[in-house]
């Protein structure tokens, strides 16, 4: 390698490193100082687990636990429902005639491209209008989460389906399988990678959502982690308690996503965006 190239390479990596450092600095600082037991970014008492102990015995503990519970229920039900709905409908969409297919896929894109706040507001007014059918509470939240997660599931399965050799399905039929049996035994296994990454996508999207949940949670006392953070930490300054919560949540999220992505690094078609 020429000397000029080497210099360029070092500068390039230096720049990339700098941007990465900037991206991760706030989270790293929070994690480090979650062990200080204070919220002023100093170590007056040295290394301590006080912030983590506060998770269990502070006044917000009950609220946090309930928020965690609702976040989990919501993320699991929304991602399971949208994966099932998405998997079957993608197969259906694939066999629609061209014009209808294009229309459905355009509407399917709406929740992805639309500004979150517009979608949140529109659902809120919709539910308010039909409040006798959709009571406040989890029903509304699950429906709205399914509404913004399913499009991603559809778009992560569709490319896989497009690549599938149609003869495989025909062969199954020729060999005596029923259409439904062929779908379960031939089509589904083939599109499974798309289904799995769609599910992972739906789960993380639901877990991460704030705006749509905030507008549709109503006043039944349901808070998810995001809305609870917003209600509690926005007003007061960040207490040590929150340092611990943020650290745990960030670390869990990073590990989860690194694992998912490293695992699927083989199948590139799982790329969802666009």
């Amino acid at each position, binding site marked *: 390698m020429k000397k000029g190239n080497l210099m360029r*390479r070092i500068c390039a990596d230096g720049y990339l490193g700098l941007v990465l450092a900037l991206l991760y600095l706030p*989270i790293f600082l929070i994690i480090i100082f979650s062990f200080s037991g204070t919220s002023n970014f100093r170590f007056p008492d040295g290394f301590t687990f006080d912030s983590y102990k506060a998770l269990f015995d502070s006044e917000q503990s009950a609220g946090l636990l309930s928020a965690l519970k609702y976040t989990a229920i919501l993320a699991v039900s929304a991602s399971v429902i949208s994966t099932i709905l998405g998997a079957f409908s993608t197969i259906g969409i694939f066999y629609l005639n061209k014009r209808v297919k294009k229309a459905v896929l355009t509407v399917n894109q709406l929740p992805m491209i639309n500004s979150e*706040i517009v979608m949140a507001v529109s659902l809120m007014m919709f539910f308010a209008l039909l409040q006798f059918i959709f009571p406040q509470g989890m029903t509304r939240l699950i429906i709205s989460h399914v509404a913004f997660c399913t499009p991603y599931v559809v778009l992560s399965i569709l490319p896989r389906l497009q690549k599938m050799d149609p003869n495989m399905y025909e062969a199954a039929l020729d060999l005596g399988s029923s259409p439904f049996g062929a779908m379960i035994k031939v089509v589904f296994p083939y599109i499974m990678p798309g289904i799995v990454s769609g599910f992972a996508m739906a789960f993380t999207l639901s877990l991460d959502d704030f705006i749509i949940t905030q507008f549709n949670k109503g006043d039944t006392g349901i808070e998810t982690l995001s809305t609870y953070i917003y209600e509690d930490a926005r007003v007061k300054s*960040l207490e040590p308690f929150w340092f611990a919560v943020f650290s745990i949540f960030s670390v869990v999220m990073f590990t989860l996503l690194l694992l998912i992505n490293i695992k699927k690094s083989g199948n590139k078609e799982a790329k969802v965006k666009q």
Partner: protein
Amino acid sequence: MNKSKFKFRFTRRAFAYPYMAFLLLFVVVPLVIILINAFLDEGKLTFANFAEFFSNAGGGLTVLGNSLIIGLVTTLICLAIGYPCAYLLAKYHASNRVLVLLFILPMWVNFLIRTLSTKAIFMSLNVELGMGTVLFGMVYNYLPYMILPLHTTLVSIDHSYIEAAEDLGADRLSVLLKAVIPLSVPGIVSGITMTFIPAISTFAISEILSGSKIYLFGDAINMHFAKTTNSLGVGSVMSLVMLVLVIVANVIVNLTNKEEEVNSVL
């Protein structure tokens, strides 16, 4: 054989119907409700909501203007930081998926966590909350959304174009300006939309990082729908304005992508 083929296609197509009904009910109808609400004031059909917003009576237009400026500045800073990142990643680390992933991952940590962490750090450093901190928070939040589409486009550029430019005597700068950047226009456009649209419509980031001093369009929409204020009509008009911006942005993205397809066919 033809008959059986038609039959299985018909049965499989039916799997799309429940979802089509779902989309209609929970995506299209709610947007139509916004549209109708924009023309309603205390149950009467009227243009008053539009008049109120576009005459800037409640200051909504000023907020929109400010948001557009802040969104634009955020987007430009993200592009200035993000383009070199995506370019260098594609040039030197195209095969290193984990490194690319590291640039994208922060967008999956809840933005409230990141924003509140940033605020806590600013406060401990005695940095006064205001426009500067809001801009920092916005760039910090949206940078991954800029890098992702740019990187996707840049790695997919056919390397023979760059080699051809080099063979024909272009120096590094000309290669960058006349080959790489023009070829990455679709990525630039989609990066700009993915940053700009959320940046103008977000709520909470500006509120948190300015100590409730700076309100953006998203915050304004939020306030119109709060229980205490009763201005759903004006809020709906503002949502419509936002929706129009989203649609315009996506039409532009689609147009640039089409051009790209045409170019690659030629």
